[in-house]
């Protein structure tokens, strides 16, 4: 009886899952000849706003906002979704630090559908009100700002904030007390570490660089991953074969985009079991990630069509659907 606080939310999400795109719908979207036809197709399915016009970015942005509006509306406790919202929050921090240091203002670089929207983040950093930021974010913001002001090294600043974001995600997962959220957070951090290893190998970065960029997590050993990355891409794939990310080894050998796709599909696969749960936060997380994946897939297809990419190249990047 004590774990019934998500009953209303899960039932509402069940009703909303009906409108998620299935593989068949994505197939129909792929069959559209042009990006405009594709955009009209998704708008006929209820995407975007009547007043929003037919701009692809506006439609996709509106869909992201709608998803968070639903989650905010149904979730009894938003703190469990920190693992999903932190990337946006830390992106805003990164953008605000750079805007303050360069004293330039670039429109549209902030996310507004998170706890601290862009304008507020910019004000906090400008006024150096770091105590207004949650958890360790204030300390990281101060360090990143000082580092960028003194060294003008944008990459170093990015690494500091990105690593802090990964640590915060891991910590938020542990703090949530929900196994599915903890698992999601751990997988997110592990996949980010693997991507860092692959990119660091391609750009010839040192072990110390990787150590400063990667975050500790349960499912991947950072030191072993760094050693593998220093030895070569094949070694990374071989290391992954010995972890719970074994399936990603083949994808990594195939191409970076295949690996990215595998990462998203693995997450969807993990969350699919939540479709049968009635009393936990799992279905809410499943829906949220499913919507993000859906929007990402539609963006890939429409952008591919806009730029005249062949269907096969687009198909390779399409994610598995949740329903």
């Amino acid at each position, binding site marked *: *009886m004590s774990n*019934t606080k998500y*009953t*209303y*939310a*899960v*039932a*509402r*999400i*069940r*009703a*909303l*899952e*009906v409108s998620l795109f299935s593989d068949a719908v994505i197939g129909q979207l792929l069959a559209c000849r042009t990006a405009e036809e594709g955009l009209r197709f998704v708008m006929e399915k209820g995407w975007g706003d009547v007043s929003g016009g037919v701009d692809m970015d506006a439609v996709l942005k509106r869909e992201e906002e709608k998803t968070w509006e639903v989650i905010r509306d*149904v979730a009894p406790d938003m703190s469990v979704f920190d693992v999903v919202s932190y990337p946006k929050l830390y992106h805003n921090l990164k953008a605000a630090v750079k805007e303050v240091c360069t004293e330039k203002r670039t429109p549209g670089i902030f996310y507004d559908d998170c706890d601290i929207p862009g304008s507020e983040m910019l004000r906090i950093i400008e006024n150096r009100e770091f105590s207004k930021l949650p958890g360790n974010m204030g300390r990281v913001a101060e360090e990143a700002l000082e580092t960028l002001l003194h060294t003008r090294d944008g990459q170093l600043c990015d690494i500091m904030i990105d690593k802090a974001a990964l640590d915060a995600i891991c910590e938020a997962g542990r703090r949530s007390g929900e196994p599915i959220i903890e698992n999601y957070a751990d997988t997110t951090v592990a996949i980010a570490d693997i991507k860092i290893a692959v990119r660091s190998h391609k750009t010839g970065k040192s072990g110390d660089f990787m150590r400063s960029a990667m975050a500790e997590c349960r499912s991947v050993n950072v030191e072993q991953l760094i050693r593998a990355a220093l030895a070569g891409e094949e070694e990374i794939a071989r290391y992954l074969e010995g972890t719970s990310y074994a399936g990603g080894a083949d994808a990594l050998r195939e191409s970076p985009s295949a690996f990215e796709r595998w990462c998203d599909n693995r997450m969807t696969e993990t969350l699919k079991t939540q479709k049968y749960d*009635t*009393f936990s936060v799992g279905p809410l997380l499943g829906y949220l990630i499913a919507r993000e994946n859906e929007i990402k897939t539609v963006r890939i297809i429409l952008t591919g069509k806009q730029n005249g990419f062949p269907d096969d190249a687009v198909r390779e990047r399409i994610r598995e659907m949740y329903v």
Partner: protein
Amino acid sequence: MNIAGELGIVYALLGAAVAVLFAGCGSAIGVGIAGQAASGVVTEDPSKFAKVLIIQLLPGTQGLYGLLVGFITLSKIGILGGGTADVSVSTGLLILAACLPIGIVGLLSGIAQGRTAAAAIGIVAKKPEQFGKAMLFPAMVETYAILALLVSFLAVNGIQV
């Protein structure tokens, strides 16, 4: 008033109270859980109101079973008729014991049925055409409430006052 001499009727009344209270609480909690799920579905799709309402009501029967046993008990000891029967302590305890099955099973099965009904409402939310099958899962829990009702009913009826 001699309390010791009245203990029999006190135990018998306690039996009626156990049947009505526990089974009623089970139903209230069960219907409450199912109601939360039903509200969630109707928020997004009001056309499913009738279907989810029927499923929400399923855990309500335990309360009725408790009420039935409570009535029979009150009638047996003459409270309803106005002339209270002379109930010995042993008979009072027997009536209390007879009321326990529907009280306890009513409470637990009501909660369990509420949780099953909430899950079944999830089926209706996604596949309304499977309403019949969705009804069956919470209905299975009902079996055990009926068994408890049967035992309590027969036992209360079988006790000679």
